[in-house]
Protein backbone atom coordinates (compact mmCIF):
# COMPACT_ATOMS: atom_id res chain seq x y z
CA UNK A 1 0.00 0.00 0.00
CA UNK A 2 1.21 3.47 -0.84
CA UNK A 3 0.36 6.13 1.69
CA UNK A 4 -0.37 9.56 0.29
CA UNK A 5 2.07 12.29 1.31
CA UNK A 6 -0.78 14.01 3.14
CA UNK A 7 -1.42 10.97 5.36
CA UNK A 8 2.27 10.37 6.04
CA UNK A 9 2.83 14.02 6.91
CA UNK A 10 -0.23 14.12 9.16
CA UNK A 11 0.94 11.01 11.02
CA UNK A 12 4.35 12.49 11.81
CA UNK A 13 3.14 16.02 12.52
CA UNK A 14 0.40 14.93 14.93
CA UNK A 15 2.69 12.51 16.76
CA UNK A 16 5.36 15.20 17.17
CA UNK A 17 2.80 17.70 18.42
CA UNK A 18 1.95 15.42 21.33
CA UNK A 19 5.61 15.58 22.30
CA UNK A 20 5.50 19.38 22.07
CA UNK A 21 7.51 19.53 18.84
CA UNK A 22 6.53 21.22 15.60
CA UNK A 23 7.91 19.78 12.36
CA UNK A 24 7.63 21.06 8.83
CA UNK A 25 7.89 19.13 5.61
CA UNK A 26 11.20 19.28 3.80
CA UNK A 27 12.00 18.10 0.33
CA UNK A 28 15.53 16.84 0.53
CA UNK A 29 18.33 15.81 2.79
CA UNK A 30 18.88 13.14 5.34
CA UNK A 31 22.43 13.91 6.29
CA UNK A 32 23.07 13.70 9.98
CA UNK A 33 20.23 11.34 10.85
CA UNK A 34 21.79 8.69 13.04
CA UNK A 35 19.08 7.56 15.46
CA UNK A 36 16.32 5.28 14.25
CA UNK A 37 13.36 3.28 15.50
CA UNK A 38 11.13 0.84 13.67
CA UNK A 39 7.76 -0.88 13.95
CA UNK A 40 6.89 -3.96 11.93
CA UNK A 41 3.33 -4.22 10.62
CA UNK A 42 1.91 -7.65 9.82
CA UNK A 43 -1.31 -8.88 8.30
CA UNK A 44 -3.11 -7.78 5.16
CA UNK A 45 -0.30 -5.26 4.73
CA UNK A 46 3.23 -6.34 5.50
CA UNK A 47 5.61 -3.48 6.04
CA UNK A 48 7.95 -1.58 8.26
CA UNK A 49 7.68 1.97 9.52
CA UNK A 50 10.91 3.72 10.51
CA UNK A 51 11.64 7.14 11.93
CA UNK A 52 15.14 8.55 11.78
CA UNK A 53 16.46 11.74 13.31
CA UNK A 54 19.56 13.64 14.28
CA UNK A 55 20.94 13.24 17.78
CA UNK A 56 20.00 16.84 18.59
CA UNK A 57 16.40 16.19 17.58
CA UNK A 58 16.37 13.04 19.72
CA UNK A 59 17.58 15.00 22.73
CA UNK A 60 15.00 17.72 22.14
CA UNK A 61 12.28 15.08 21.77
CA UNK A 62 13.18 13.43 25.07
CA UNK A 63 13.47 16.77 26.88
CA UNK A 64 10.11 18.03 25.63
CA UNK A 65 8.38 14.73 26.34
CA UNK A 66 9.68 14.23 29.83
CA UNK A 67 10.21 17.79 31.02
CA UNK A 68 13.63 16.76 32.30
CA UNK A 69 16.76 18.95 31.93
CA UNK A 70 19.35 17.83 29.40
CA UNK A 71 21.64 16.65 32.19
CA UNK A 72 19.06 14.00 33.11
CA UNK A 73 18.54 12.75 29.56
CA UNK A 74 20.53 9.63 28.74
CA UNK A 75 20.75 7.55 25.57
CA UNK A 76 18.14 5.09 26.83
CA UNK A 77 15.59 7.85 27.31
CA UNK A 78 16.30 9.30 23.85
CA UNK A 79 15.81 5.86 22.30
CA UNK A 80 12.65 5.32 24.31
CA UNK A 81 11.22 8.67 23.18
CA UNK A 82 12.02 7.99 19.53
CA UNK A 83 10.55 4.48 19.77
CA UNK A 84 7.34 5.90 21.20
CA UNK A 85 7.18 8.59 18.50
CA UNK A 86 7.56 5.82 15.92
CA UNK A 87 4.89 3.76 17.66
CA UNK A 88 2.38 6.62 17.53
CA UNK A 89 3.22 7.44 13.93
CA UNK A 90 2.77 3.78 13.00
CA UNK A 91 -0.55 3.65 14.80
CA UNK A 92 -1.82 6.60 12.77
CA UNK A 93 -0.69 4.93 9.54
CA UNK A 94 -2.16 1.59 10.59
CA UNK A 95 -5.57 3.20 10.99
CA UNK A 96 -5.55 3.57 7.18
CA UNK A 97 -4.85 -0.12 6.62
CA UNK A 98 -7.29 -3.01 6.27
CA UNK A 99 -8.50 -4.44 9.59
CA UNK A 100 -6.57 -7.26 11.15
CA UNK A 101 -3.10 -5.75 10.82
CA UNK A 102 -0.93 -5.91 13.93
CA UNK A 103 2.03 -3.82 15.06
CA UNK A 104 5.19 -4.99 16.75
CA UNK A 105 6.63 -3.29 19.79
CA UNK A 106 8.95 -0.51 18.52
CA UNK A 107 12.67 -1.22 18.52
CA UNK A 108 15.79 0.80 17.84
CA UNK A 109 16.92 0.61 14.21
CA UNK A 110 20.40 0.59 12.74
CA UNK A 111 21.92 1.96 9.56
CA UNK A 112 19.89 4.58 7.80
CA UNK A 113 19.80 4.19 4.05
CA UNK A 114 19.69 1.32 1.62
CA UNK A 115 15.92 1.44 1.58
CA UNK A 116 14.75 -0.11 -1.65
CA UNK A 117 11.22 0.55 -2.89
CA UNK A 118 10.53 2.76 0.10
CA UNK A 119 8.39 5.80 0.64
CA UNK A 120 10.53 8.50 2.23
CA UNK A 121 9.19 11.69 3.81
CA UNK A 122 11.47 14.35 5.24
CA UNK A 123 10.76 16.87 7.97
CA UNK A 124 12.68 19.55 9.79
CA UNK A 125 12.32 21.03 13.26
CA UNK A 126 14.50 24.00 14.16
CA UNK A 127 16.96 22.87 11.52
CA UNK A 128 17.08 19.26 12.71
CA UNK A 129 16.13 16.54 10.27
CA UNK A 130 13.50 13.83 10.82
CA UNK A 131 12.87 11.19 8.18
CA UNK A 132 9.94 8.80 7.87
CA UNK A 133 10.60 5.65 5.87
CA UNK A 134 7.80 3.25 4.97
CA UNK A 135 8.79 0.02 3.28
Amino acid at each position, binding site marked *: MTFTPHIAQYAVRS*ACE*MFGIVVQEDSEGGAGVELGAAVQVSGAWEGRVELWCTRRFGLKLAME*ATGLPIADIDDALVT*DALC*ELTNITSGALKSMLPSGCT*MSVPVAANEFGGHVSSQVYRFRSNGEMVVLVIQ
Partner: protein
Amino acid sequence: MRVLIVDDSRTMRMIVKRTLRHAGFEELEIAEAGDGREALSMVASFAPQAILSDWNMPELSGLDFLLELRAGGDDTTFGFVTSEASVEMVQRATSAGAQFFITKPFTVDTFRQVLNQFLSE
Protein backbone atom coordinates in the same frame (compact mmCIF):
# COMPACT_ATOMS: atom_id res chain seq x y z
CA MET B 1 -7.41 8.57 44.19
CA ARG B 2 -4.83 5.91 43.28
CA VAL B 3 -4.11 5.52 39.56
CA LEU B 4 -1.82 2.97 37.92
CA ILE B 5 -0.21 3.91 34.59
CA VAL B 6 0.97 0.93 32.55
CA ASP B 7 3.19 1.50 29.52
CA ASP B 8 6.48 -0.02 28.40
CA SER B 9 7.71 3.44 27.44
CA ARG B 10 9.04 5.51 30.33
CA THR B 11 8.63 8.58 28.13
CA MET B 12 4.97 7.85 27.56
CA ARG B 13 4.33 7.23 31.26
CA MET B 14 5.76 10.69 31.94
CA ILE B 15 3.62 12.25 29.20
CA VAL B 16 0.49 10.59 30.60
CA LYS B 17 1.30 11.83 34.11
CA ARG B 18 1.86 15.38 32.86
CA THR B 19 -1.30 15.31 30.76
CA LEU B 20 -3.31 14.16 33.77
CA ARG B 21 -1.96 17.14 35.74
CA HIS B 22 -2.72 19.57 32.94
CA ALA B 23 -6.21 18.12 32.60
CA GLY B 24 -6.88 19.07 36.20
CA PHE B 25 -6.31 15.72 37.90
CA GLU B 26 -3.65 17.04 40.24
CA GLU B 27 -4.43 15.18 43.43
CA LEU B 28 -3.89 11.68 42.10
CA GLU B 29 -1.57 9.20 43.75
CA ILE B 30 0.17 7.62 40.76
CA ALA B 31 2.15 4.40 40.39
CA GLU B 32 3.74 3.04 37.22
CA ALA B 33 4.33 -0.35 35.64
CA GLY B 34 6.31 -1.22 32.52
CA ASP B 35 4.19 -4.11 31.25
CA GLY B 36 1.12 -6.15 32.06
CA ARG B 37 2.99 -8.67 34.20
CA GLU B 38 4.45 -5.98 36.44
CA ALA B 39 1.07 -4.27 36.50
CA LEU B 40 -0.62 -7.39 37.89
CA SER B 41 1.72 -7.38 40.87
CA MET B 42 1.26 -3.62 41.27
CA VAL B 43 -2.50 -4.11 41.46
CA ALA B 44 -1.97 -6.36 44.46
CA SER B 45 0.42 -4.02 46.25
CA PHE B 46 -0.88 -0.57 45.23
CA ALA B 47 -4.62 -1.35 44.95
CA PRO B 48 -5.35 1.25 42.27
CA GLN B 49 -8.82 2.67 41.84
CA ALA B 50 -8.24 3.28 38.13
CA ILE B 51 -5.83 1.86 35.55
CA LEU B 52 -4.64 3.53 32.34
CA SER B 53 -2.89 0.93 30.21
CA ASP B 54 -1.08 0.74 26.90
CA TRP B 55 -2.18 -2.10 24.62
CA ASN B 56 0.95 -3.27 22.85
CA MET B 57 3.57 -4.26 25.45
CA PRO B 58 6.15 -7.02 25.92
CA GLU B 59 5.66 -9.82 28.46
CA LEU B 60 1.91 -9.35 28.87
CA SER B 61 -0.19 -7.13 26.59
CA GLY B 62 -2.68 -4.63 27.93
CA LEU B 63 -5.59 -6.76 26.80
CA ASP B 64 -4.21 -9.91 28.42
CA PHE B 65 -3.55 -7.89 31.58
CA LEU B 66 -7.19 -6.79 31.62
CA LEU B 67 -8.44 -10.31 30.95
CA GLU B 68 -6.36 -11.71 33.82
CA LEU B 69 -7.55 -8.93 36.08
CA ARG B 70 -11.22 -9.56 35.35
CA ALA B 71 -10.76 -13.35 35.53
CA GLY B 72 -9.54 -12.82 39.07
CA GLY B 73 -12.69 -10.90 39.95
CA ASP B 74 -11.05 -7.45 39.98
CA ASP B 75 -13.40 -4.74 38.69
CA THR B 76 -11.07 -1.75 38.96
CA THR B 77 -11.90 1.01 36.47
CA PHE B 78 -9.77 0.23 33.41
CA GLY B 79 -9.05 2.05 30.15
CA PHE B 80 -6.59 1.89 27.31
CA VAL B 81 -4.28 4.68 26.18
CA THR B 82 -2.86 3.33 22.96
CA SER B 83 -1.60 4.22 19.51
CA GLU B 84 -3.84 1.61 17.89
CA ALA B 85 -7.58 2.03 17.82
CA SER B 86 -9.37 -0.10 15.26
CA VAL B 87 -13.07 -0.80 15.71
CA GLU B 88 -12.17 -4.43 16.35
CA MET B 89 -9.75 -3.49 19.15
CA VAL B 90 -12.27 -1.21 20.84
CA GLN B 91 -14.85 -4.02 20.69
CA ARG B 92 -12.40 -6.52 22.18
CA ALA B 93 -11.44 -4.07 24.90
CA THR B 94 -15.05 -3.32 25.75
CA SER B 95 -15.97 -7.00 25.78
CA ALA B 96 -13.07 -7.66 28.14
CA GLY B 97 -14.31 -5.01 30.54
CA ALA B 98 -12.56 -1.78 29.56
CA GLN B 99 -14.51 1.39 30.30
CA PHE B 100 -12.69 3.85 28.04
CA PHE B 101 -10.30 4.02 25.12
CA ILE B 102 -7.96 6.95 24.42
CA THR B 103 -5.95 7.05 21.21
CA LYS B 104 -2.44 8.47 20.94
CA PRO B 105 -1.75 11.16 19.98
CA PHE B 106 -4.08 12.61 22.60
CA THR B 107 -4.66 16.09 23.94
CA VAL B 108 -5.29 17.54 27.40
CA ASP B 109 -8.90 18.13 26.35
CA THR B 110 -9.31 14.47 25.42
CA PHE B 111 -8.09 13.40 28.85
CA ARG B 112 -10.40 15.86 30.56
CA GLN B 113 -13.45 14.81 28.54
CA VAL B 114 -12.91 11.07 28.73
CA LEU B 115 -11.56 10.74 32.27
CA ASN B 116 -13.66 13.24 34.17
CA GLN B 117 -16.34 10.70 34.98
CA PHE B 118 -13.79 8.12 36.12
CA LEU B 119 -11.17 10.11 38.01
CA SER B 120 -13.25 12.74 39.78
CA GLU B 121 -13.65 11.82 43.42
